[in-house]
């Protein structure tokens, strides 16, 4: 990171500010992304007679989130073992 005319302290504060904004957005953004992906996998229709999620769809959504987390953790572990 090259920002020669900011002093050290300002740079750190700026970074902290951007990191905090980022973290706040990150959790929301992850949940929105998972919802979108698992929606595509699990929710087949949205008709006017059917505006509740049924038990099959619910189980699929829960499994989908858990498989997503499993996969992420598996990838992280395998990347660490490589290095």
């Amino acid at each position, binding site marked *: 990171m090259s920002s020669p005319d900011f002093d050290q302290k300002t740079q750190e504060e700026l970074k902290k500010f951007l990191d905090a904004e980022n973290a706040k*957005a990150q959790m*929301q*953004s*992850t*949940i*929105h992304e*998972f*919802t*979108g992906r*698992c*929606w*595509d996998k*699990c*929710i087949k*229709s*949205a*008709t*006017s*007679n*059917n*505006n*509740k*999620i049924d038990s099959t*769809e*619910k189980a699929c*959504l*829960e499994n*989908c*989130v*858990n498989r997503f*987390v499993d996969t992420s*953790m598996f990838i992280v572990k395998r990347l660490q073992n490589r290095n």
Partner: protein
Amino acid sequence: QVKSEMALANAQELINKINNNCFNLCFQNIGPSFSNNDQKCVTSCMDKYMEAWDIVSRTYVGRVQKEQQKF
């Protein structure tokens, strides 16, 4: 429960996501007006999307907490 999480959620983001996910489902054919059927479909889809968001959110937060307890 949805409501409090909603308050936390960036409302604009939620609206965008509902729109994106329900548009494809409800507007396979695009007509010249926003018909009653369109409104019913969007209503139903929106309710389901928010319920899905709630399920995903609880499952994800629960799983993250469970994993953190392992350390």
